[in-house]
């Protein structure tokens, strides 16, 4: 063993010793941060189970004397939460289906064919998703007031204040992101696959529905998870494009809920937990899809 190697070994050992302390500090830091991170949600959860009378008598920061789910029951009925949940689903589910269909069609064309317009087309879609929503909201509002629909589609007779209107705006706004992700994903599928199908006489539609789409299932699942959360969490569209409070999806209905619950913090926290629950559940159950969808977009496939 040369002197140099001995010296290196000694240095490495010294380094390891030096590293041992920071590890403890790191764990301490992470633990404290994690507790602080959970505190806001934990606090809402804690408050939501305490009856109003209990917090009035003992204060909010106190050991609870009684715990009950009565706040949840009140929030549920008083805030018409089932109705608003239902509204969110009526909007989110068709929107996600159409977004994924549109985005896969664009992704398919861009990744399987070399048309001159491939790059401009993709930019057209991507940039639409990056604009701040307020950039388009004023003309969109005026446009929605001027598009007539039969009353069986929209009670208002207009695109304004209709479920369809919200589905359309979500589709228009979100397709770009998914088209971007899917075009990258489809590029990784070998072109020999669709070529073989074509030799067998399969047309473009068969290649798309029969071969490419099934192979994109993981990406589609990831995007569906992500889009559900985004559309469910959207606030602005319905605040501006819907006037009837009872048609609003749940996140936008928080604006009215706040007035209805007045200053009953216990009720507000129960409602907050109820509204947050679906996205938390989706995240807990589909964490892998959720994160892969996000990073798929950021890492370009």
């Amino acid at each position, binding site marked *: 063993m040369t002197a140099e190697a001995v010296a290196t070994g000694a240095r490495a050992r010294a380094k390891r010793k030096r590293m041992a302390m920071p590890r403890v500090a790191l764990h301490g830091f992470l633990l404290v941060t994690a507790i602080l991170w959970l505190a806001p949600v934990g606090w809402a959860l804690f408050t939501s189970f305490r009856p109003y009378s209990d917090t009035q008598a003992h204060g909010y920061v106190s050991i609870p004397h009684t715990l009950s789910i009565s706040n949840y029951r009140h929030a549920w009925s008083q805030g018409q939460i089932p109705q608003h949940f239902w509204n969110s689903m009526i909007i989110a589910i068709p929107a996600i289906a159409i977004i994924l269909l549109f985005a896969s069609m664009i992704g398919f064309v861009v990744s399987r064919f070399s048309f001159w317009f491939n790059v401009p087309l993709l930019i057209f879609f991507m940039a639409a998703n990056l604009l701040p929503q*307020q950039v388009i909201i004023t003309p969109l509002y005026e446009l929605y007031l001027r598009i007539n629909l039969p009353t069986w589609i929209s009670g208002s007779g207009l695109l304004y204040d209709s479920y369809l209107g919200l589905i359309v705006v979500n589709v228009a706004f979100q397709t770009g992101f998914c088209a971007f992700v899917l075009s990258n994903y489809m590029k990784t599928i070998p072109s020999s696959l669709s070529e073989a199908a074509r030799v067998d006489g399969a047309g473009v539609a068969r290649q798309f529905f029969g071969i490419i789409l099934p192979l994109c299932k993981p990406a589609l699942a990831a995007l569906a998870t992500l889009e559900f959360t985004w559309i469910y969490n959207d*606030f602005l569209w319905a605040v501006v494009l819907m006037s009837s409070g009872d048609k609003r999806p749940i996140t936008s209905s928080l604006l009215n809920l706040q007035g209805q619950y007045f200053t009953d913090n216990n009720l507000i926290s129960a409602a907050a937990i109820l509204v947050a629950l679906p996205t938390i559940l989706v995240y807990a159950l589909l964490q892998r899809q959720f994160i892969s969808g996000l990073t798929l977009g950021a890492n370009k496939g």
Partner: protein
Amino acid sequence: MAVDVATGLKTGGAGRGARAVRLSTADRITLTVMVVVPTAVVGVFIWFPTVASILLSFTNWDGIGGVGTAHWIGTRNYHEIATIYPPFWPAVEHNAIWLAFLTVVATPFGLFLAYQLDKNIRGTRIYQSIFFLPVVLSLAIIGFIWQLIYSPTEGLINNLTGNASSTHVIDWLGNPKLNLWAVLVAVGWRHAGYIMVLYLAGLKAIDPSLREAAAIDGAGEWHAFRTVVFPALRPINIVIVVVTVIEALRAFDIVYIINNGRNGLELLSVLVTDNIIGEASRIGYGSAIAVILIVISIVPIIVFVWNSFQERDV
């Protein structure tokens, strides 16, 4: 190699040396529908309103009569916004502070968390799940939840610090000098988790031998990070910058839930919305502010698009 310019079918490789094959009429119709339908929807509901915003910002249209009643007034809306519209400059300042806070505090903190969690430490998955939790919550819900913490007499902070019953209660969300910062803490809580996840993916993609080489060279951790890890994160850094700028421009939900974006929480996005559904609706003002948002956001959009096409060989 025969190339048929009338078709664009790719065969072989990833587009290079592509041989084209004639498409049948049915295939052409299918492809046309596939392109035209989504393009029409995005064109009508995103790009048409974008252009309309720009045009309307130069008119005095009140939105009541037909568009034909609009008169071209040049840059008067812009001039009035900058001179006699009181909430405008505070909103610009708040958006700038918002962006600065995300850039200087929340984004670096997200990167710090990602860097630490990328080391093979025990419980890293649990920590990641915890730090990411706020990202799945909407900013409207976050506004709801944080009100419980900031509430003057019933909130967690004032009760823990014993300020809740004192004579000079701190009104975190009501005091216009404090409320922006209180809101930014809540926003940073969410933003840091988002950034962490993006960076974790970026860090995983870095060749581990790079870091080992730096460690063998005896480089300190900070030095190795600065000279080896951070430069290797360049592609993701661009995405992060774009995400941060866009998030700062989009900021709306949380202040609108807390106090409709008034009294210290004015933002450009709130002013646009107020000019549609607020008490004083002026289409021209709203559109002019929207155009200001377009002008600012066009920079990160171009950077993002350019960056993503640089790395692809299209």
